[in-house]
């Protein structure tokens, strides 16, 4: 590509979108004359102008149709095993519904952790890193609990092999569970921890309660990462996890924070902000659509994502989210919970300005969309 060509192409930057310019740059043969290049550019502009949306085009409904229509063709299988050894993920229709609902608790939280350059090449190192970030609970180190009714003690026998693997001794664990076990004396002996009552209360119930309580104490790793799985992707190793904790993972020094993602939209919104959440919605939905072998243009998905994020917070496509924000009383009432909307409107004296679609359908008026948008006035002599 000659510099001269780049200059010509770039001079159209205000008339054509960047992506089109890029394709031109890639497709144009290197030996083309300047006059032919300008001819091509004019041609591209004409093609672009032809393909532009017309004002009044009902892009919303077309988008909804484009996503809703293939919905019937998607599988309902919640669990999909991608390849032989990957983490289970919700896919298909349930996943799309989950994303559009903007659920705060998703069914299968998952992360893809990319590592920075020196850390991501060696399988052993990556495996070690993965083992380190996996959340480990006290429970996992225990091989036996024994409650003695006579002595009023709880004896916890730890798994020596696991302790050694993680370079821990019983004392370390005691430190961690101390705060949970107030009112007890903790003593350790080799791989055993002994719980005894501090005061006089001799309730076996308390011992049982403490046993259940300490099970969930985090011993190591990152909170929430239930499973980790190092996987080779292209030239590097990536860690897939089930369970997520974007905030803490991004803070780790080995992690490439530019590429690491979570599949939890709400978490992304909290950690990275609304624009990241919008992109995450697009990515997640597009991923599902593609995996089902359907062809849906990304613009339709973008539109839904933009609607969900337009107010600055992620709103679901539900009666509590996007729909509740509509200005029109009748539009809201015709969706769900009509009585609630009508009574509230009456108390607050709301006015429906009939600017959207359903209200006008209700009163038999043309809708202000498409051919209903322009008004024609005949000039009378």
């Amino acid at each position: 590509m000659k510099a001269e060509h780049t200059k010509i192409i770039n001079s159209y930057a205000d008339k054509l979108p960047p992506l089109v310019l890029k394709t031109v740059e890639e497709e144009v043969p290197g030996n083309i004359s300047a006059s032919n290049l300008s001819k091509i550019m004019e041609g591209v502009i004409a093609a672009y102008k032809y393909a532009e949306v017309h004002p009044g085009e009902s892009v919303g409904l077309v988008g909804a149709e484009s996503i809703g229509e293939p919905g019937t063709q998607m599988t309902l299988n919640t669990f999909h095993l991608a390849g032989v050894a990957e983490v289970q993920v919700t896919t298909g229709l349930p996943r799309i519904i989950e994303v559009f609902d903007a659920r705060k608790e998703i069914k299968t939280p998952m992360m893809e952790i990319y590592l920075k350059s020196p850390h991501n090449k060696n399988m052993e190192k990556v495996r070690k890193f993965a083992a380190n970030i996996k959340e480990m609970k006290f429970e996992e180190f225990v091989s036996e609990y024994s409650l003695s009714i006579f002595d009023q003690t709880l004896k916890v026998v730890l798994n020596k092999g696991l302790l050694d693997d993680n370079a821990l001794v019983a004392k370390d664990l005691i430190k961690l569970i101390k705060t949970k076990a107030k009112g007890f004396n903790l003593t350790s002996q080799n791989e055993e921890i002994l719980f005894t009552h501090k005061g006089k209360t001799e309730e076996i119930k308390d011992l049982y309660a403490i046993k259940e309580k300490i099970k969930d104490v985090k011993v190591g790793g990152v909170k929430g990462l239930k499973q980790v799985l190092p996987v080779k992707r292209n030239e590097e190793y990536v860690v897939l996890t089930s369970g997520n904790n974007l905030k803490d993972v991004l803070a780790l020094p080995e992690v490439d924070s530019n590429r690491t993602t979570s599949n939890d939209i709400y978490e992304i919104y909290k950690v990275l902000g609304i624009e990241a959440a919008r992109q995450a919605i697009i990515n997640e939905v597009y991923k599902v659509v593609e995996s089902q072998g359907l062809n849906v243009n990304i613009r339709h998905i973008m539109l839904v994502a933009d609607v969900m994020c337009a107010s600055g917070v992620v709103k679901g496509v539900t009666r509590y989210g996007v729909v509740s924000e509509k200005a029109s009383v009748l539009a809201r009432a015709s969706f769900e919970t009509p009585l609630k909307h009508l009574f509230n409107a009456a108390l607050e004296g709301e006015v429906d300005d009939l600017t959207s679609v359903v209200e006008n359908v209700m009163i038999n008026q043309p809708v202000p969309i498409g051919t209903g948008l322009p008004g024609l006035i005949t000039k009378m002599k």
Partner: protein
Amino acid sequence: MDRQVHKKVCNINFSLFSPKQIMDLAAAKVVTPELYDREGYSVDGGLMDIRLGVIDPGLRCKTCGQKLKECPGHFGYIELARPVIHIKFVRQVLDLLKSTCKYCGQVLIPENNISKFTDVFDKVGKEEGFEARRRKIKEVVNKFKTKEKCPHCEKKQEKIKIEKPYTYYESDLRLSPIEVRARLEKVPSEDLKIFGYVEGFRPEWMVLTVLQIPPVTMRPSITLESGERSEDDLTHKLGDIVRINQRLFENINAGAPEVIIEDLWDLLQYHVTTFFDNAVSQLPPARHRGGQVLKTLAARIKSKEGRLRHNLAGKRTDFSARTVISPDPFIDLNQVGVPLSMSMNLTVPERVTEWNKEYLLKFVKNGPKKYPGANYIIKPDGKRKSITEDTQEEILEELEEGYLVERHLLDGDVALFNRQPSLHRMSMMCHKVKVLPGKTFRLNPAVCNPYNADFDGDEMNLHIPQNDEARAEAKILMLVDTQIISPRYGLSVVGCIQDAITGNYLLTKELVLSRAEATDLLYNCGVTDLSPLPKKEKVDGSEVFSVLLPNDFSFIGKDKSGNDVKIVNGKLKSGYMDKSNLGQESGLMLRNIYEKYGPAYTAELLGKISKLGISVLARRGFSIGIGDMDLPLETQDEIRATVKKSEDEALKIIDEFYAGKLDALPGRSVAETLELNVLGALNKARNKSGDIAMKQVQNSAAITMARSGARGNPLNIAQMTAVVGQQALRGKRIESGFKNRTMSYFGNKDLSPKARGFVKNNFKSGLTPAEFFFGAMTGRDALMDTALRTPKSGYLYRRLSNALQDLKVEYDGTVRDASSRIVQFSYGEDGLDVSKTKNGVVDVKSVIQNVIGASK
């Protein structure tokens, strides 16, 4: 000539009626529960009072003097003997009682704070919308509900409780609606702002003293065959209310004991409550004598069958028809075959002018019984006259300019054709009518795909637009031709299907025709100009096909098996025509023709290609039989060997598992690893044998169809001829149905392929009972999946379309919603309309090719 008055509703206000407004609006005061007197006339002051509107033919409304169907009905009212709480405002009343002073009625906030809070509300409302404002108000009100001392009169407040559904208690003392109302009356209007109520609203209106009676037209009675009248549910409920109300009046006037009055009052409250909403959770619903629950006001509005969704957001139309569809490949793509009997009932209004009077008179002369005739004429004053044998003469003479004639449907009339579920805009397209004998709608099989129709008994609807604006819009925006490119992905949604594909595939691949045959074929699909056909005795199939293509059309693409398809200047040089170029949802060939030659040309060409394919098959003959599933002996052996090998492999893995030698995959248990490995091995068996079966040289019809993409795929063929393969349930092999085994027929903990759903046989050789049962299991699972999915995806679609329906592109290119809030600055970040792009992108390549090609 036209007496149209154009009025536009510009907005709708919502508010509450005050008692005074209810009385002012009322046409009658209802005082007696009787409906009719002995002669059967409605009683004055009863619920069916003819001042409230008429529902009997012949009667005139006493209020407006209009007849049935003209009179919209008028409201009435009942004066309640004692006030009752409106069930739908119980919450609001409770909030008000809790947050205002028992003695002075003022809100429990120091004076100066009120304006402070209202300012906050306005600000929140402006910045974040009314929903946020509502939330803020709730928050503030909740804060002051629990105050114990009035900041104005310094008096101590008592705790107010509610016993659902509608009884208030103040420190265990019951507050009667009269007291509640008195409290609410005390609240000063200025203080109400803090609750977000509209200016001029008084809270005491939420405790009813008069009850509005809906017009008779809203609750018409039905006369049964026996002559008996059956009243509407609402009338029944209102009758109860009036009856109790009158008794309460009488008892109060007679000075009855307080207990009796209380009881009646409670009953009145119950009846008024169920009149509004018969599904209040703590109340038993009011019932008919038979035990059927009454359908009262709330139930009439709510739900899919309610007023809003059933009658207001969805409507029914005249001039429409519905019947079974059947295919007709010999009508055009954009035509629809309409049965003659239907076309004599569906009509198109045409205005009589100086120039078409003769033409229209012809229809009137034919009358309603002879096609093409006319059923009605409409006079300029809007009166409609039926054309019958008696009136025909008179009408013929009377007809003059300005009259409308409703003539029968003719060929070429514009119609909208639709199939439910209407999931996308291609579910309702404009077709041109072609009147045909028979009793079904006929459509070209190529448009099945956008409608998602088949001919196993599907029915479709037809609508005839009734004015020029509607016709123009239908023709310009909705015609099949204009809908060829899907807005979902920017490729064509119509294309050849089934026989049309097979036919063209065979034609371009292997047929050599005599010149006579070729001309016959071409004439048959509507080609009259045979000059592009080479002047030879024997013509290649591809040359016949090329005759249809425009002379200046060049195209380079791929066919289904990956070979190049080359069209140079309207001649098919290499490659075969198959699904990837002729079919729907693929194929850039049609997309390119559409771009270069426009919608109408593409539709016509597609029709021709489709007809050509079908004619080829009709002449050549094409049939499938069980013999198509036969494989040569050596192939059969080969397949048997492959299957055996895979089975052995699977058994080996299982043995390893039992010997404890199987290594677990990362993140999996050993048992899971076993399943995955076995599944992998067995799937390999089917894929391999499928490939072997497809490779067989014998060109059976089944294989031809699979290769051309017309019907079936290699997998189907493999299942029929070679091996059905592993049946998978939720991505796994079939697991236990009994304890540790899938069927009692198998041994305990048998993990071998045949015991876990591997079907070794093929459909032709037949399945063993166990195999058949495994097949039935996966089949049932698939059925369940579809049945569960349809409503889910339907609901998702409804939510999406409700949320997005009012987004549109503005004149400045931004995408905005109904309240002009910007959602996107440029649609899809580059402002491109998907239906005008090729698979979502501007085709830079072809522009470059055009320029370079031109300069060469």
